[in-house]
């Protein structure tokens, strides 16, 4: 386990279920002559434990539907976990009400995926940036407020003279800068970024990534970075958490993960990245498709597609096991030395 003393955010045994059965009346079914209440759930997160260490960029990767965005939203308090805890500097925050959360809102901020939806279309850039600063620092004078906003606009490369414009006048990359500026405006120490560059073009992606790295350096930020793009992870992440179907398969430092992926799913994922070089290893073809998170497979969630699965994998849920180099892997095969 990582040393809990320097961890900023702790996620312990997090579960999140969403009901997909509609409201109460829709759940009542007629079965075998009796009225019964039936509820179906999507199991988005199933027992995830993670520590985000101060100053790092922890990347969470996985394919769509693996629960990575749900983790981000639960950490930010946008969703209430079904079970488990989220703590910030040792204080539990997932059960706080809006008022009690307020001091944490200043410290934890979020950057969203879609720059076209994350800015209020009816507010000018200035209004968008001014509101949070004013809200969290009601004592600031108008001049201090303006200086603060101009400073943060400068730091993300947005000209303060554009402040009176509306979001639709900007390109995707510019909007994402503004979105980052809004998060930085309240001087947070922890930022959750939910696929912040996946909606952008390649040349713009590089700009935004650089901006985020600059901000990390100058403001001493800690990131929880959600993405599906492994190439970005390799460049940006300090550590990587690979998720599959709501569970954590592997957690390792970026260098270790890319040099020596342990979990069969991580291996398949890495082998599937399109490469520019010719000497790419053949990609590992997985059997079948990702099962629905409504009825989870028994045992290891990956066993249906895993080339190394055996009886034990079908029955027993693997726990994260620490390895010698500090990585953690949840795989019976790795534990037994088969893989």
């Amino acid at each position, binding site marked *: 386990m990582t040393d809990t003393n320097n961890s900023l955010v702790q996620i312990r045994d997090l579960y999140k279920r969403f009901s997909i059965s509609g409201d109460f009346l829709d759940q009542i079914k007629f079965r075998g002559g009796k009225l019964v209440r039936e509820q179906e759930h999507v199991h988005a997160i199933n027992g995830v434990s993670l520590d985000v260490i101060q100053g790092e960029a922890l990347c969470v990767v996985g394919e769509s539907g693996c629960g990575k965005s749900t983790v981000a939203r639960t950490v930010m308090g946008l969703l209430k976990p079904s079970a488990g805890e989220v703590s910030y500097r040792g204080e539990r925050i997932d059960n706080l009400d809006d008022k009690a959360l*307020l001091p944490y*809102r*200043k410290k934890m901020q*979020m950057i969203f995926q879609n720059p076209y939806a994350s800015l*209020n279309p*009816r507010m000018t850039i200035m209004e968008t940036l001014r509101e949070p600063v004013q809200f969290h620092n009601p004592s600031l004078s108008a001049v201090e407020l303006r200086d603060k906003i101009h400073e943060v606009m400068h730091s993300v490369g947005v000209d303060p003279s554009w402040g009176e*414009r509306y979001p639709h*006048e900007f390109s995707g990359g510019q909007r994402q800068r503004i979105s980052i500026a809004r998060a930085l405006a309240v001087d947070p120490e922890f930022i959750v970024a939910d696929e912040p560059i996946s909606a952008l073009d390649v040349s713009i992606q590089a700009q935004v990534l650089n901006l985020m790295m*600059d901000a990390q350096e100058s403001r001493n930020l800690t990131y929880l970075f959600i993405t599906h793009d492994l190439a970005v992870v390799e460049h940006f992440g300090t550590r990587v958490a690979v998720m599959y179907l709501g569970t954590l398969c592997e957690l390792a430092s970026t260098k270790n993960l890319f040099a020596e992926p342990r979990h069969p799913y991580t291996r398949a994922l890495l082998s599937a990245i399109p490469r520019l070089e010719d000497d790419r290893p053949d990609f590992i073809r997985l059997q079948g498709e990702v099962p629905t998170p409504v009825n989870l497979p028994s045992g290891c969630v990956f066993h249906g597609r895993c080339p190394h699965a055996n009886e034990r994998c079908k029955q027993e849920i693997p726990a994260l096991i620490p390895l010698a180099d500090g990585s953690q892997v949840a795989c019976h095969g790795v534990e037994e030395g088969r893989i």
Partner: protein
Amino acid sequence: MSDTSFQMDPQPSAWQRFKDSHFFHSFKIDRVAQLSFLIFITYVILALGAPLLSPYDPYDLSQVDILDSEIPPSWEEEGDERFYLGTDAQGRDMLSTILYGTRVSLTIGICAVLLQAFLGIVIGLTAGYVGGRVDSLLMRFADIQLSFSTMMVAIIVLAVFQATFGTELYQDLAMIMLILVIGIAEWPQYARTIRASVLAEKKKEYVDAARVMGFGRLRIMFRHILPNTLSPILVISTVQVANAIISEASLSFLGLGMPVSQPSLGSLISSGFEYIFSGSWWITVIPGVVLVVLVLVMNLLGDWMRDVLNPKLYKG
């Protein structure tokens, strides 16, 4: 790291921005919209300026002479030059009465819609944003309200009121009663539309961003979401004003609306109806045409606005 190669046009003024907007452009190329807007504005000016524009004051009984009753419009053979559009059964100048009547009808229409909009926005916004049980409760309430037709509710309420408190009091309070009844009977239209667009807006990330900032519910609802639902509100408002005017006219025609002493377009039509077979067509037909044109123009404007502002959100 400043990025100055990103070029922008100089900041346009608000007027310039409006002139370049899709809204203004569609207006510029749509003759029907232009004509409708022109006619509507004319109505509004005539209604506002009724006390200045009308040759007589129909509320002032000293100016009315019963001997002048049922004079046809001035272009008819028996017409009188003093009364351009003729007079009604009590001898009031039709032109003045219609101007005043339009004023009453528009006032009732607009006030009733303001009331509807207020109730509908508050309820729709709450239902949409809070969701869950509150949403179900409020929306079932709206369904029940909608299942009674506006006319039926209005007729019952107004008839009971008249029977209980007497015609005297009713005549004094007629306008307020009509506004209340029409306003309360039709709020579900607004509530449903607003709720639908709130549900769509709620999913967008800027609302999450506001929540992450720690803003309170009311602030998010009214400052962040409400401005983004204004287009559908604008669209239904035009159509709803027209509907309210029609409702008022129908109620007045049935004798449950504005009293004859303070006529709206509806009660004018109604009062002239008795005389239509005695040849005095103008008492009914002229206010009728005025009413139909007003309602038509508002509906055309509403249709046009719906097409321009949000083709998807509000259909029918």
